[in-house]
């Protein structure tokens, strides 16, 4: 018997040329030199990483460049153990929100340099407040992966 309905399988690919603008270009140039650059709002005093061209709280452009610490603490994390189309890493891996010392927001990144085979041990190591430090990629492309991952300190 003939099948009554069918599906058609296809991809749609679209090309992009994303502009970084001055602020993000400088932020990524910083990564290439192993510096994590943020901007500090001259009105409210908050420091944002990645750098912003204007303060998200005050809507003003008066910001000054600062170099952020490369150490920070874990605010939250999860161990990803499922595959999705579009992922750049093969699971399992850990993603986390990291608050760099002296900044007023968190950044998303991987946490690496730990053994993921025993969940209990992972859970003991990766707590809220656990200290982590940026580990740099040897090959730098001026993109967010110039930081290879954050690794637990001590």
């Amino acid at each position, binding site marked *: 018997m003939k099948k009554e309905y069918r599906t058609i399988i*296809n991809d749609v690919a679209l090309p992009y040329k994303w502009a970084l603008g001055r602020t993000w270009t400088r932020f990524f140039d910083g990564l290439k030199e192993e510096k994590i650059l943020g901007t500090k709002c001259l009105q409210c005093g908050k420091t944002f990483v990645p750098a912003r061209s204007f303060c*998200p709280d005050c809507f003003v452009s008066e910001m000054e460049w600062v170099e952020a610490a490369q150490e920070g603490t874990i605010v939250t994390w999860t*161990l990803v153990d499922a595959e999705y189309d579009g992922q750049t890493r093969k699971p399992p891996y850990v993603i986390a929100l990291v608050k760099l010392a002296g900044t007023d927001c968190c950044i998303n990144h991987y946490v690496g340099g730990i053994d993921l085979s025993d969940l209990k041990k992972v859970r003991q190591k990766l707590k809220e407040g656990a200290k982590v430090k940026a580990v740099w990629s040897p090959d730098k492309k001026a993109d967010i992966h110039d930081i290879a991952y954050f690794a637990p300190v001590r």
Partner: protein
Amino acid sequence: MGKSVAIIGTGQTRHGRRQDVCYPDLVKEAVEAALEDAGITLKDVDGVVLGTMPSMMEGVSSTHFYFAEAMGSVGKPVLKVETCGSTGQSIGHCGFFWASSGMADIVLVVGSEKMSEGDGQATMNTVFDPFFQRTFAAGAPGVFTMQSMEWMYRFKIPEDKGREAAAMISVSNHDNAMDNPHAHIRTRVTMDDVKNARIITYPVRLLDVCPASDGACAVIFASGDKAKKICKKPAWVKGIGFRGEEFFYGESDKAIWMSATEAAKEAYSQAGIKDPLKELDVAEVYNPFTYQEMIFYECFGFCPRGKAPDYVLKGTFKKGGRLPCGPSGGTLCTNPIGATGLIRMAEAALQVTGKAGARQVEGAKLALSHAMGGVDQFNGVTILGSEQ
């Protein structure tokens, strides 16, 4: 509040894997059901609002055009609105604004998704900027799980207690879905099933997570005067609230969650609700993840901060409990994203008009419906009531 507006009809498809129909035909199924429920025809409709996920989910970027015949929008004004997962609430709010402005008597609002045609998590990744956050997203589970962990850390919720309560939420949603003929997943699960399911994003497991569904929902809004004329028992819009958050995920506090908290607060204030746990009869909370559902309970004032697991464990939100949540089986058992938030609203309308069948909460008069979108950035709430 503006001029009063009511819901006079709702329609849903059979949700699930619907490869038997092309996408426009799926949408027509919901539209026909809603027209029949309201006892009107397309000729009575003054305007149409459509919502879906970011529109490349199914590879056709302008679904408001793809569905022109299916939703009868030819010759009518039509709007396409999308705010990710919160789309269903946003299109309802848009229908409300339109009817309340006096520019339309009857507005047909349609939400849909056909997730079997695309890759949900790949599409979800395109929601993020390509520079900073996209590669660390791990789809919706990644961010929603990080939020849940942040919440448990903040309120010092022991891992075991969180796990137990989340499992109970999964079991009770699956039980409720058995009463809902539209639901996608209709299988009972046990506490052990949930706790032993495979890990997606630790500590979240497969049965803590919604499915990817095909489905559509249509809801018909009418101005107050029109509603009273043509509908015996409309569901009145008592309050609406919506809030957005920051672009950088790491910039806001997701354990407290301003957008969910403030959206509910605004809707309550319009509806005159002071003690939601006492005054609401039923809630359709957008719950794609069990752990996250508990954060919503706290944001919506159903219990104090950090106490949701305790309330869950004592059965407050179960069928027969003080405030039944998700009698439909919720997002956890059915998630055609662009439709999901509108399904919550439709289910709330069914409840306050006594038309919810086997999933009816006896005597329900005041209901909360809700949806969340982006990567935690958007929350929308609508309160419906049986009285004007």
